[in-house]
């Protein structure tokens, strides 16, 4: 056993008793001196002389006091060591008990630690920057409802906006209000980088020049970005980037030559300026940043993106340091009051009068962000809260199960304990023995739990596509300690307490304590209640995942593969894309195994979306936001390739037939404005005042646009070639007749042939994208099902254990009943009825709990209500059946008791 633990425990105990022991020795010494002095005085010695002599005789009192103290301390140490050895011996002997306890602890501590580690990594851990507690972000709230807003395919009211435009950011840098200094982070994403001829795709953040200075991060090599880097045209030495420790290792093998190295990012030359410290991976938890570039570099990367002057393009997250002592609430008031001044500052951005009014109506809120600010934090906070609640329930189930196990064990050890008490062991010693055993089990459970947690804390974020650091830091360790303390308290204290009290009852007849029986029963009711809620949650999620996966998407695309090649970084210039796309399409259509093929601007059910308001003659009184449609830009052959039937009209013609404005619309758009699909054909819609009217040439049924949850998104398709030359990023959809793998390989060869180099290709399918979009739901269903299964198992063993104990306790009574003519069947039913009663009580409590929590999972459910009677009935039946099944063995044993044996005196 661990030496340090032994001495730690002893010393902890000693702390309380040491001073008492010292005082005792002190008093004893004083008494001795007084007695001796008195005796010497009686012999006739003067008082002073007597006192002196008595003290001399005492010798080196400190030394022997110390000896005495050690004798006691050693005694306790030895007793503890004996307890530990005895405990290990006992636990090794009772293998099943030990196994069940360790398993229970491992699962509960593992699940709790894992979920907490993830919560800590995503939401709690302070950023490794200078004084993170001063950091705060700016959020626009009170958003006027002028647009439409979707979250995971669900239309919502936009309540807040995390992004501001560059002109507004510029105004903010001049009037920082409650902030001392601010910085901005434009969206993060992967870019193609080439280092010495080898490709990398690092996650990149575009940051304002103030980012690193405000955060106070120091480089581990080279220098970091400053405001001099974030200027029009870039600094004299060329556009700089800062790389992470990870990218430095991957791309440069941590070589010092990285500093000043020339690299290309999306075909634009950049220079590596420096490397961030290992611990720093950006301010966006969930998305670890590998490369930082100045916002201004976007003018080189995306020449057509008018971000610098367009006040309508909100793309910067604004964060900064609050002035010391300014609370976020006060800061919010200050910022909102500044709005008119900011607007005047940003005036040249040319906002419309309407937009100005809207801006002035918004509130500028300041929120503390010591742990950073990112979309994953916002997206997964509710998921983590659900999981924390679930693992909390698992912990309660586990702890109460341990209580019951230990109680049952204490009951079966009454004989042993009574003997020990009779042989002179104090109740305190017995209590210590039992606590030592609990501690041993707890340590074993923690060890197992940490191993499980390490695995889960990696597997869960991977499932959610989260890039998280979930290592065990002090916060997590403190959490584990707290969890453990809770379990030991719940599980160890009550049994220890009752066991040590049993010497009062030990000699009484072998009836069990009624109080402990009731206590165990109530624990089982609690377990069943929590299990019921977990089971229900799991069932609802499973049903939702089934619903989502099998939802009709509007595509018939089992035999269609989607390939998005990065031709630009493989050597095809922007203007050359149009020709390359056409050439590839022609070639692909000739390939064996290809049925049809088409290019599309956006992969179906992919992450991007494009929305616009259409002008429909006769419907111009409808506000623009209600005339919004999703846009798709596709080539001829798209509908056939994705298996979308035409309801009316025709497909887009091949580009050779001339460029003419036309569109195809989804059925609901056609029905809304023209009544029937056929009536829409030949009608004209407008996109903006200065563009020609666009003829409707076809109508197709609704298809999901970017998420399965969408309820038939209104969509308008345009032939991609009417917009002139194509820009990079299109997706090739190919319907095939043969095997997929050889075809994909052939298409990749085709891309390489066209570009001259191997391009990065993202390969997906419609089904794959559907699965991708239900990741969260799938994870929740898996974890909840796991937790519920654990709860069910524990409840079942709990019921079986309690009844076995009751049967054992009531052997005589049952024997008498049987002797007096009770049918064994009746005895059996009595016990099963008892189990059913316990389960029913748990079910009622669990039902109330679930009803109270019915809204928690609402945003993750699909086509099933949180109160779905079918789901809950099935769950209730499963639970009750499990209880009856768990009771059947002890009940059967009861019915098989031999009256003669049962009534024989012990």
């Amino acid at each position, binding site marked *: 056993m661990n030496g340090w633990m032994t001495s730690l425990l002893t010393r902890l105990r000693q702390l309380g008793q040491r001073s008492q022991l010292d005082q005792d020795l002190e008093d004893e010494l004083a008494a001795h001196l007084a007695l001796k002095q008195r005796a010497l005085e009686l012999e006739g010695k003067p008082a002073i002389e007597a006192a002196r002599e008595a003290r001399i005789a*005492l010798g080196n009192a400190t030394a022997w006091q110390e000896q005495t103290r050690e*004798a006691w301390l050693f005694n306790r140490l030895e007793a503890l060591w004996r307890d530990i050895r005895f405990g290990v011996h006992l636990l090794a002997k009772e293998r099943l008990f030990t196994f069940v306890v360790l398993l229970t602890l491992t699962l509960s501590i593992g699940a709790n630690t894992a979920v907490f580690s993830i919560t800590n990594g995503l939401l709690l851990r302070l950023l490794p920057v200078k004084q993170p507690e001063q950091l705060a972000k700016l959020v626009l709230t009170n958003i006027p409802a002028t647009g439409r807003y979707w979250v995971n395919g669900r239309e919502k009211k936009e309540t807040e906006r995390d992004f501001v435009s560059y002109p507004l950011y510029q105004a903010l840098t001049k009037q920082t209000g409650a902030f001392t200094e601010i910085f901005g982070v434009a969206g993060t994403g992967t870019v193609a980088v080439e280092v010495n001829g080898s490709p990398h795709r690092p996650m990149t953040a575009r940051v304002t020049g103030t980012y690193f200075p405000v955060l106070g991060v120091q480089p581990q090599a080279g220098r970091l970005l400053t405001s001099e880097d974030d200027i029009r045209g870039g600094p004299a030495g060329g556009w700089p980037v800062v790389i992470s420790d990870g990218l430095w290792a991957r791309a440069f093998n941590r070589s010092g030559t990285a500093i000043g190295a020339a690299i290309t990012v999306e075909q634009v030359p950049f220079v590596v300026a420096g490397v961030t410290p290992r611990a720093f991976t950006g301010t966006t938890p969930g998305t670890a940043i590998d490369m930082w570039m100045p916002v201004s570099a976007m003018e080189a990367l995306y020449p057509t993106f008018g971000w610098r002057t367009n006040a309508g393009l909100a793309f910067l997250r604004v964060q900064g340091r609050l002035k010391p002592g300014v609370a976020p609430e006060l800061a919010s008031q200050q910022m909102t009051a500044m709005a008119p001044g900011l607007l005047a500052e940003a005036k040249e951005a040319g906002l419309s009068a309407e937009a100005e009014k809207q801006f002035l109506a918004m509130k500028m809120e300041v929120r503390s962000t010591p742990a950073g600010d990112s979309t994953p934090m916002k997206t997964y906070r509710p998921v983590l809260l659900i999981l924390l609640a679930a693992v909390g329930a698992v912990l309660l189930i586990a702890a109460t199960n341990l209580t019951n196990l230990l109680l049952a064990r204490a009951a079966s050890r009454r004989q042993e304990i009574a003997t020990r008490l009779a042989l002179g062991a104090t109740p305190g010693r017995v209590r210590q023995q039992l606590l030592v055993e609990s501690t041993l089990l707890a340590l074993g459970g923690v060890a197992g739990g940490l191993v499980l947690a390490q695995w889960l804390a990696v597997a869960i974020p991977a499932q959610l596509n989260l890039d998280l650091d979930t290592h065990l830091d002090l916060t997590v360790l403190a959490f584990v300690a707290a969890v453990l303390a809770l379990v030991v308290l719940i599980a160890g204290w009550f049994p220890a307490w009752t066991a040590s009290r049993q010497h009062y009852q030990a000699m009484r007849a072998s009836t069990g304590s009624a109080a402990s029986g009731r206590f165990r029963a109530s624990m089982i009711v609690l377990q069943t209640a929590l299990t019921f809620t977990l089971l229900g949650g799991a069932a609802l999620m499973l049903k939702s995942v089934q619903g989502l996966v099998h939802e009709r998407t509007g595509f018939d695309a089992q035999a269609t593969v989607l390939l998005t090649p990065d031709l630009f970084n493989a050597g095809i210039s922007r203007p050359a894309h149009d020709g390359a796309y056409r050439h590839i399409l022609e070639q692909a259509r000739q390939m064996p195994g290809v049925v049809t093929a088409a290019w599309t601007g956006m992969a179906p059910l992919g992450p991007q979306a494009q929305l616009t308001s259409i002008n429909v003659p006769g419907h111009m009184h409808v506000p623009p936001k209600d005339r919004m449609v999703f846009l798709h830009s596709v080539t001829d052959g798209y509908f056939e390739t994705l298996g979308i039937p035409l309801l009316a009209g025709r497909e887009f013609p091949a580009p050779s037939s001339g460029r003419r404005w036309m569109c195809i619309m989804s059925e609901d758009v056609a029905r809304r404005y023209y009544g029937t699909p056929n009536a829409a054909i030949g009608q004209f819609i407008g996109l903006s005042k200065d563009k020609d009217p666009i003829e409707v040439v076809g109508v197709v049924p609704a298809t999901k646009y970017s998420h399965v949850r969408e309820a038939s998104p209104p969509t308008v398709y345009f032939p991609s070639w009417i917009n002139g030359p194509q820009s990079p990023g299109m997706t090739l959809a190919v319907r095939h007749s043969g095997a997929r793998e050889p075809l994909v390989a052939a298409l990749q060869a085709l891309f390489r042939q066209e570009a001259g180099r191997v391009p990065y290709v993202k390969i997906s399918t419609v089904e794959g994208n559907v699965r991708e979009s239900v990741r969260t739901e799938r994870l929740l269903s898996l974890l909840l099902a796991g937790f519920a299964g654990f709860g069910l198992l524990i409840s079942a063993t709990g019921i079986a254990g309690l009844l076995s104990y009751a049967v054992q306790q009531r052997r005589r009574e049952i024997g008498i009943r049987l002797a007096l003519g009770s049918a064994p069947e009746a005895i059996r039913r009595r016990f099963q009825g008892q189990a059913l009663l316990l389960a029913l009580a748990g079910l009622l409590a669990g039902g109330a709990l679930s009803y109270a929590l019915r809204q928690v999972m609402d945003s993750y459910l699909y086509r099933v209500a949180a109160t779905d009677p079918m789901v809950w009935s099935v769950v209730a039946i499963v639970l009750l059946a499990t209880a009856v099944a768990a009771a059947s063995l002890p009940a059967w044993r009861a019915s098989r008791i031999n009256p003669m044996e049962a009534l024989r005196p012990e």
Partner: protein
Amino acid sequence: MPGTLDLLILHTLEAGPAHGYAIMEAIWSRSGELFRVEEGALYPALHRLQVKGWLESEWGMSEANRKAKYYRLTPEGQRQLAKERTGWAQIALGMGRVLGEFKS
């Protein structure tokens, strides 16, 4: 000799509970002022015997109306005393015989 002091203490306490000073005096006077037990040996021994469970202690009032710690034999201490006495008698007998043989 190791164990001798323990035996002396246990024997002294057989007559009834006593505090440390009284034990010291009793051994001094009963040994015909031959054995003088030092405080530095007596008190650690008293506590050691307590740790072993042979003695119990309790605060009480001494003859001078002072608080003093009284030591008492436990049942286990009684058994130990009997055992040590037999052991000592054996040793004394053995020693006597051996030394006697050499003498004669």
